[in-house]
């Protein structure tokens, strides 16, 4: 029966919707983090600039924080709108009684 449930269109859509968000998001944030590491390792001069009195390296670090906050918010929104309803449908069917 789990196999049947796993084959329902709702479930396959749920799975692909989840992956469609988290995989690119993960690639994105890891690449962005890698960019932070690489710049730190090999572009120290560039990062030593101080636009507006704030070291670029710290702006870049802060950028990591901003992107993390943004992805967190985006994921929450996506999960609420797209994933939760699908998951709810699959679950309701499995649990039968409760709805």
């Amino acid at each position, binding site marked *: 029966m789990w196999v049947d449930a796993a084959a329902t269109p709702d479930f396959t859509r749920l799975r692909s919707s989840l992956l469609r968000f988290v995989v690119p998001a*993960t690639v994105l944030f890891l690449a962005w983090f890698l960019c932070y590491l690489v710049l730190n390792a090999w572009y120290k001069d560039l990062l030593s600039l101080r636009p*507006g009195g704030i070291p670029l390296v710290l702006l870049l670090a802060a950028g990591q924080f901003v992107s*993390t906050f943004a992805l967190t918010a985006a994921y929450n929104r996506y999960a609420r709108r797209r994933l939760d309803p699908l*998951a709810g449908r699959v679950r309701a069917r499995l649990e039968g009684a409760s709805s």
Partner: protein
Amino acid sequence: MSSVLVSSVLVSSVPAPPPGPVTGSAVGDPVLNVVVFAAFLLVVLVVVLRVARSGATRSSYYAGGHGFTGPENGLALSGDFLSAATFLGIVGAVAVSGPDGFGYAVAAFVAWLLALFFIAELIRNTGRYTLADVLTVRLRERPVRAAAATSAVVISTLYLLAQLAGAGGLVALLLDVTDRAGQAVVIAGVGGLMLVYVLIGGMTGTTWLQIAKAALLVGTGAVMAAYVLGITGLSLPKLFESAALRHPEGDAVLRPGLLYGGGALAQADLASLALGGVLGVAGLPHILMRFYTVPTARQARSSVTWAIWLIGGFFLLTLVIGYGAAAMVGPERILAAPGGVNSAAPLLALEIGGEIGLALVSAIAFATILAVVAGLTITAAAAFAHDVYANLIRRGTATAAEEIRVARRATLVIGVLGTAGGILANGQNIAFLVSLTFTAAASANLPTLLYSLFWRGFTTSGALWSMYGGLAVTVGLIVVSPAVSGTPTSMLPKLDFAVFPLTNPGLVSVPAGFLLGFLGSVLGRERPDRAAFARMSVRALTGAGVEHPVHGDPSMPPPAGRHRQSPFPVTGARRAADPGGPERPVIRPAAGSPADDSPTGRIADGPLVGPGAASLPAGPSPHRVAPGAGGRRGGSTGAFFQPVTPPGHGHRPADHRRGGGPAGPPPS
């Protein structure tokens, strides 16, 4: 050099201060420090005692009755995560080394996205108390449980050791106790206190300890940062300027390179450290354990979201505090103080708030150690009692009462061993232990978890390969690395068997863990179990069966007496009123009922909390799981899932007394 500094930043524990004449005894007034810490202890103790009654059941001893809300657990997660040196170490590293000192914070922070995307909700949907609960949903019970328990116990115990050993340095700094014997007494005291809280309060008490500590830590951090910014007239550029003026290296403190200036090897070591940090967080057993303290996947999501905001906000504060310490205290004074780099925050507190300020920061540092070791101890104890004792030794025949008794004993033994080890290791340079635990989690636990959640071809042998293999590679590489021998800063400086060039093995061990999991699955004779994978993924992604029984799968163990302590009244007594009562001792039939696809099985499940309820201040009625429905098995392999029912999506939030067994059409 760089690797040493790296480690000391990473380490939550404070590397022991350089031996020898102590320059300027401890700052501030040790008595006051103790008094403030005692006040904190007392407040937490009162809370713990009020919730203590609920410590008698498995669900509450291991998972706080699954009754915490997302925000509460988010605070507790940050409490678990922000260890003494995350705070002291990062502030100090920023003050002394500038942007490079902040690098660890960045890595450790972005890591949480992995926990949010891949781990938190799925774990909550499939597991009940331990990592093994999750894996055994699709893999063979006994070998996998043994592997997961080994990994959890090893990782948590090493981390525990590092934390307690590091306490020595703090003791010297904050209490002016510089001789070994005196420090041993204080470390033993911290270990003993931790045991009191864990034994009395179980996971519920531990969680409150984390929450109290996190609130205090973040609050104090905010005040200190606000003060620093206030002095500079809310101008960041001014803050940076004054830090550079005070710093012996001048402007270098505003540029990358002070810490990681070295050649290619240093860069590789840094990358290795970063890899372990980024991938390790989501695999740390004591972090995973926290996801079981909430009732639903949705609350697990909200926990991580809260944790991300709190930890991120806090790390940004440490940046300001670090530069504040550089500007107001100065790197030379920081490095000369007992405790070295770690004394930056306490010294700044002294500057800002006088002795009271220092006492507050000291108390927070101790509370931090206390809270983190409590979380570690209970994690290791749960892995032992639930996985090794109840499921492997007793093969599921242990009653809940027996299991809890063993869990308490395991707590005691692990706590005592950890404390003794910490005392013995005090003063050793074992800073690498912390990066070791992160890397081990990234190499052993994360591949196994990700594969088992998302890869249909994963098998039990794959899991064994990735867990044991990942652990072995990590530990093996550390042993032959410069962290252990071959350099003056190694643990064994006089020996040299360091054949692996990097202090941090992550660059090799993490890919090795993933590769081993893949090879074990592909090369092993075992064929992947498609049906079990279907069960795993459906349960993980939907939370089916968490709140309401699923018909047709007798292999799903119903949750054992899960109960929510009375939910959200306003007072702190909320969890004291535990309507659940002790978990019924239930004899579990051996696991693994076959009829996976039979439409008749069911689980009796008392939902903890209605969907959405936990986000409300006045939530669901207390309820307990009624004993009932036929297939009840005292709970084991983890089925305690919770659904993420969106409001309006089907389930009624409130009524949970469905022990009587659900009825309803079989699914699909």
